[in-house]
């Protein structure tokens, strides 16, 4: 049971725990965090495979799985950043909708656009008029 196998089994355990949290997590942020646990478990298994290959090939670690993990880590981070942005945006829009509902006076709530974009003939109302560059 060398360290490669030990960390491989540890990675498998992390995937199991992460999946449990991702499915049963009570808040969306917690599920996202559990999803990152699954990711780190997957990459640890890659690391165990890299270590096994490395030791068999006479190096510290096999460079190809290492390169795959680096690429995977960056993609996983980008995915988490998008999920966090979606979460915050979802809460913001729900908050604005609620405050708009709470104050019926507000007429043209820009965040809920007019009926789906008009046909070709007319200019759609409520679009960004300011001439941002």
């Amino acid at each position, binding site marked *: 049971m060398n360290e490669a196998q030990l960390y491989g089994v540890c990675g498998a355990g992390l*995937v199991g725990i992460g*999946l449990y949290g*991702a*499915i*049963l997590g009570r808040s*969306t942020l917690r*599920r*996202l965090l559990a*999803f990152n646990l*699954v*990711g780190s478990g*997957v990459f640890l*298994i*890659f690391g165990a*495979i890299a270590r*096994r*290959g490395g030791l068999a090939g006479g190096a510290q670690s096999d460079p*190809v*799985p290492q390169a*795959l993990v680096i*690429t*995977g880590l960056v*993609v996983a981070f*980008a*995915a988490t950043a*998008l*999920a966090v942005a*979606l*979460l915050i*945006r*979802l809460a913001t*829009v*729900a908050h604005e*909708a609620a405050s708009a509902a709470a104050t019926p006076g507000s007429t043209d709530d820009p*965040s*809920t*656009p007019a*009926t*789906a*974009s*008009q*046909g*070709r*003939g*007319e*200019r*759609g109302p409520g*679009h*960004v008029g300011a001439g*941002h560059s």
Partner: protein
Amino acid sequence: MTLLNAIDPWLAGPRSAELLFPTLALPVLGLLLAPLLGARWARLLALASLVVGLVLALACTAALVAADAPLVYALGGWAAPLGVELRLDGPAALMLLLTAVLLLLIGLHAAGEFSVRAAGRRATLAFWTLLLGVWAGLDGLFLGRDLFNLYVAIEVLTFSAVPMVCLKGHAAQFQAAFQYLLFALLGSALYLLGAGLMLGVHGTLDIAQIRVALDAVATHPPDIGGDARAATLAAVALMSTGLLAKTALMPLHLWLPPAHGGAPAPASAVLSALVVKGSFFLLFRLWLDLVPDLPQLHVGLLLGGLGVFAILLGNLMALMQARLKLLVAYSTLAQIGYLFLLFPLASGASGGPAATAALIQVVSHALAKASLFLLAGRILVAFGHDRLPALDGFGRAMPATLLVILMAGLALVGLPPSGGYLVKSLYASAAADLGAWWWPPALELGGLLSAAYLARILSIALSPAPASGTGTGAAAGGGHILRAPITGLAAPALLAVCALLLGLLPPALFSVMDVARPGMGSATAVAGVMLSALTPSGFWRSAGPVLTVALVVVLFHSAGESAWGRRIASIGRGVAGFEGWLRQWRTAGALLLLFLLIQVWTSIG
């Protein structure tokens, strides 16, 4: 004629493999240039690169047919297993062509809706950049042979598809996009895990090399290769489960209805017609090209069973939907079920007639569904909503749109000479060869159910305006329909006609799919099927039941309240409740893991 023989080495000569990397590089280049050019120019860039892409796809197909062998291109000059290779074979060429044609048509249709004037700078830049992103991801999926290269292509596809859902910025769309993102990322994690284990077992990620290693293992006595084969099949089960989550095969479909139902019309068309097919195509590669003996494994039964479940539940739910776009989204779920009948019926090295049926289903569903979603978008624009109960008589206000809806719907139902009919009869002949009598009835029942919801749309469209005439009915309140220009019908009509007349194409064209897939015999299979279809008896044999079901639905719809109506409505609520439970996050997560374990057990056991 110097141009022709100048490009001859590429089209037929030794350098034809060099057509592959521009097919991948072009959409990526467009994707990177779009943000630099800004919203106004991004649209022109996207449409221009789509035209060039179509030309490239045609050139690739011509080169493939001329070479009559797979085109392989080692990127950077490094061959597998060290480097990454691109490979073009029959199915990949077909999918490249379908993607280029469909994205170009949808792009031209959406040019009006997503212009800076109509949708604002943010939505315009986002839509056109994401359209190029989807195209880049799909091309990477179709040409890829390396499991990790395919993973990065899936990520490009997912990162482009999810934001298309929430382009318009409503709270419900953000909720649908978040759920789609998280479930798709769960799928990607499982796929990556499978790819990693494959690297651990075989030391290579190239599908062809793993297939060679597995063939060698199969010939050894089981104890030597035993655990290598078991480990490989476990890795394939992991990857397959991840891809099931991304293909939204029922019951792992929680994200699709809100996502495809809530997205803007052109985005829904791209998502339903192409994005979902990308991950299915990877399943096609895994189970047919990587696993040598799929027909001997029981996992085909599991996937086929889920396909039938999807056909029945998807169509039933579509029948009961109150909103038109949700109805079309659920019909997508049902049509995805047809694709998965490939796995129990695959035979021989390349999958035989079942593989031909699956590929034709991909094409015909893509065409018909893109047309339906674009038409649903027109109705949404014209009436401001797409709630079916409040759309009585919309057919009289928009007769042309109704006609095209019927054509696309018939292609889904599968009357000859449509693509749907080809799919059903090819599957039936494959089932007959294998003696599996229970698959074809499920196909027929699926066809009848889709005829039912088409009839429901028809009866709503032609029903007389309600007595109150308070403007809820479209015909009565004609005043507030916004004139949707007739030119907006060009793309959907063209798509619907193609889907409807797919069977009339000369069978030789279908042989494109056979390149590099020995023993598929698509041309002969299609010819055989179409012969019996065009005879009057053959036509009525399939059209008869469809018309009777349509009549029953129209009568039931116009009859209004009745004892029968209330009983059926209560059954409907029960089915809807069950489907709603399936679409809860925890249930879907549990089912995902359950199917992972069952696939591992059935493919090894």
